């Protein structure tokens, strides 16, 4: 294996693991499934790294792979019914914020699939033009959608506070 590729894969891995994990977590709100999704994403990154041609930024490229893995999850879930999945180890909620964080991820995972990806990328502080490029949408559409999704989430949080 080419040494250059190996080094950059390590860099990519350490830089993007948490980001890809959070995106997956926003999509499924299930730690084990999110880990599996992230692993699959990085397997695809590893397999395709030599094909990466700098047409887009490496971030856009990785998030495209991650988003498409999320969207294809439907196909895998059909093959592996939910009952077969190991149950989540419930983490203890030790403070107020932990509960809010869980509520945020739960609320996001209840949105329509593509909205989950859009808001996850926005919260990951990806530029809107890049989000548009990742999903193949217009920038204006992304802007409108982010606005609407944030409104939805804000409303949900208002009910959480009550």
């Amino acid at each position, binding site marked *: 294996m080419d040494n250059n590729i190996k080094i950059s*894969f*390590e860099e990519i*891995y*350490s830089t993007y*693991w*948490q980001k890809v*994990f*959070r995106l997956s*977590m926003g999509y499924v709100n299930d*730690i084990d499934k*999110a*880990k599996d999704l992230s*692993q699959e994403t*990085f*397997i*695809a990154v*590893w*397999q*395709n790294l030599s*094909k*990466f041609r700098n047409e887009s930024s490496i971030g856009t*490229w990785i998030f*495209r*792979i991650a*988003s*498409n*893995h999320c*969207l*294809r999850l*439907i*196909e895998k879930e*059909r093959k592996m019914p939910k009952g077969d999945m190991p149950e989540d180890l419930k983490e203890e909620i030790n403070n107020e*914020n*932990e509960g*809010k*964080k869980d509520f*945020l*991820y739960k609320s996001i995972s209840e949105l*329509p*699939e*593509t*909205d989950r*990806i859009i808001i*996850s990328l926005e*919260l*990951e*502080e990806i530029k809107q033009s890049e989000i548009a*490029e*990742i*999903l*193949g*949408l*217009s920038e204006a*559409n992304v802007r*409108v*959608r982010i606005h609407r999704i*944030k409104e939805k*989430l*804000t409303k949900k*949080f208002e009910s959480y506070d009550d």
Partner: protein
Amino acid sequence: MTININLKELWNEQSTVIPDQKEILEKADNFRKKNLRKLVLTNILLLLTSAFIGFIWYYYQPEMITTKLGIVIVILAMIIFLCCYNLMIPELKKSDYSLSSSEYLKKLLGLKEKQKFLQTTMLNIYFIMLSAGIALYMYEYASRMKMLWTIFTYGLTFLWIAINWFYFRPKSIKKQDKAINELIDKFGNLSNQLYKEDQ
């Protein structure tokens, strides 16, 4: 705006232990090996069957052209199946994840439609060839039997073929179609989510 900042803060609180990179690379390697093993196994299995049928030809030396034709058709059915399997499986498995999601979904939908068509058509062709091959192959041996036995043997064989054609084949196609239609629906729905507001 405060809610915006809060959301981002909350979002970033989610973290996990980064698994060892070796684990990922090992998985990638296992995945590749597993796929290769399956491909090789299917090929070996069908080639062995074909070789066995070839051996029957060599050992029993059939005299009639119908017997030989039957054997050729059966082997051909398996070879056609094998070629399609070898060509299609990698194409169905490989997907360009680096496309934008809307392009990716479109491509996925196209692939699923193709898979659906192939599954149905392939199954039909395989079935017709196999049945025709068996019927031809049997002729030489059946013709040496008494009339009643010939009718009985052919009757039984055709009954078996008919059960397969009218019962098992539609059932299998229906099952495959149901699974794939569900996926086509769902991927179509995802694609619509992206497109409905971007016109």
